[in-house]
């Protein structure tokens, strides 16, 4: 197996993280732009690393837990880059890159499972999984943004304004970014879930509609719809919405770990 793309990805993400951190501490714009550029290069290299991994194991990249983690890292980086370009705000990069890097390294330092390829589920199934992981990535991003919001708000209230706080996005922008991220997650999870039902309908002998995974996915969907509605009201905008967003992500993590591993009948391939 060729290690060129994983190594390139790791180096690009690591350098990007260093540059984002430096940008946050010094405010040097060129450093920030280079950070974004390296993140973009990392994304391209990561794509090829995922492609090679799939080719090497003769299966889809989300075939095993590690592949899913790598895809999650890639989609998190992609969502973040989209958000950064849309909102023209790169000071959050220093907080998101560690997550991307951890997921990427955890996935690629572990060997790919050599299990027999799963049954071919087709394009609908592939889209279902990819969109679901994209939704989780977007929710993870909104979680990080909410944490930054609460931290920055606390610093502002306590008048502890170091250089870093001065370079973070304004509170209202963080709020908007979090909502944008949740919107991406909501659309993805809604379409992904619908495609999941379509996909399972096409499979012979798998017509159980009582899987706990479905219940928790619908709960996640409902909670984020609630967040999206409340976060736009004046009474909830700000710290309350951020706390709700953090709570919602705890449910997402439960769905991704406990439910997938121990409760679900149809999502155990993680």
């Amino acid at each position, binding site marked *: 197996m060729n290690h060129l793309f994983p190594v390139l990805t790791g180096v690009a993400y690591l350098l990007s993280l260093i540059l984002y951190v430096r940008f946050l501490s010094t405010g040097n714009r060129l450093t920030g732009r280079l950070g974004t550029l390296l993140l973009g290069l990392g994304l391209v290299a990561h794509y090829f690393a995922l492609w090679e991994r799939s080719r090497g194991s003769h299966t889809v990249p989300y075939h095993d837990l590690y592949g899913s983690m790598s895809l999650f890292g890639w989609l998190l980086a992609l969502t973040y880059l989209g958000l950064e370009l849309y909102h023209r705000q790169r000071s959050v990069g220093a907080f998101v890159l560690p997550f991307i890097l951890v997921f990427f390294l955890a996935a690629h330092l572990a060997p790919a499972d050599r299990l027999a390829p799963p049954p071919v589920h087709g394009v609908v199934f592939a889209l279902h999984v990819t969109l679901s992981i994209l939704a989780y990535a977007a929710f993870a991003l909104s979680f990080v943004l909410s944490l930054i919001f609460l931290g920055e708000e606390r610093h502002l*209230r306590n008048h502890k304004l170091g250089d870093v706080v001065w370079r973070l996005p304004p509170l209202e922008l963080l709020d908007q970014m979090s909502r944008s991220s949740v919107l991406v997650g909501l659309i993805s999870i809604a379409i992904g879930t619908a495609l999941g039902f379509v996909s399972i309908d096409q499979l012979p002998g798998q017509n159980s509609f009582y899987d706990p995974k479905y219940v928790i996915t619908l709960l996640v969907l409902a909670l984020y719809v609630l967040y999206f509605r409340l976060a736009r009201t004046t009474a909830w905008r700000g710290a309350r919405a951020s706390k709700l967003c953090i709570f919602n992500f705890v449910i997402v993590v439960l769905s991704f770990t406990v439910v997938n591993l121990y409760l679900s009948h149809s999502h155990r391939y993680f």
Partner: protein
Amino acid sequence: MEIVLVGLNHRTAPVEVRERVSFNAEQAQRAAEELRARGILEETLVLSTCNRSEVYGVPPESSHESAPGLSTFLSEFHSVRADILSVSLYHHYDQEAVRHLFRVAAGLDSMLLGEAEILGQVREAYRFAHEHGATGPVLNRLFQGALEVGKRVRTETELGTRPMSAASAGVKLAERIFGKLSERKALVLGAGTISEQVVSHLRDRGIAQLYVMNRSRDRAEELAKEFGGKVVEWGEWDIALRSPDVVVTSVSAEEPVLRREIVERAMVARGNRALFLMDLGVPRNIDPMVAELYNVYVYKIPLAQGIVEEQLSKFLSWQASVELVGLVDALRTKLREERATFIRSRMEPMKHLTETDRAHIEKLMDEMLEKLLLEPAQRLRDEKELRRKIQNVEALRDLFLSSREKP
């Protein structure tokens, strides 16, 4: 031990008056000598910069009556008519004088908040006065304290690393919450120099709408006209606080102007939309409880002010200890005199007592008086809290000593 301050600064006097009342080194020395010779002050220190001229001193009598004499002296010294000068001069005694100096050294009283130059100027003024023998134990201690305040504020708070005008600092903080201010509205309470600075900064940042509220409507209209804003009637809080995102207060008031219930009512009317309050008043214009409200952000300069208050408390404690020790010494002298008179009169009829007996009784009484005084004196020296409790040493002095016997 009284401390008096008479002076003027950029807030109270126009530049032409400030120029006429400024001191060069030779004038500062001459003023100190004349003030001592005339018996107005025992210790003197002149602080003169382009933005302020202030005379700090210790008068011979603690009567809180030295400021008028000092004002007259300044008028004569600089040949400025007293009626012109009196509208620009401020005067403070004791605690307020000390607090003022500490705020000056901290850069909190400067036009450019936190500027470092003033600390150097305070240090230089003190060095000059000390070298020329114009200061004594009180001013020495006071100015050493002021230099410590300045140093601490610059090392322990962000004012030292990020000096900026109070207005600019506040406006930048508002941007930390709202981002660009071009779609935001602001209300400015007060129409003084600081308010003017804030309005100017808000306009530079493209604030969409500006409201001005001031006790004097004429001044509010003047400011609103200059910057294209609207005037809101003083006290119409429900209307005034409904729409602005940023509220700046710089009002001269002893009590907070924006109380919790006013802001709480406004937040209900606003549907909890974020509100940034910038308190630039001294003393504070915004009730501290307001900061607890949801989506309300209050900006003030707590750290620097906290250091000022901490050092002020230290100085006052030292001042009280010195005064109390002086009081105890005076009391001891008085009791000894009383004892001598008392023993003489009471032992006169006791002819049977030998000289040795008399000496023995006198010694016993001395010991008793010493014991009575020693313990309280020791406690006063050692216990800071006790010194804080005895706030008014003058009252104790009046209680035990006649004016003739005061130290």
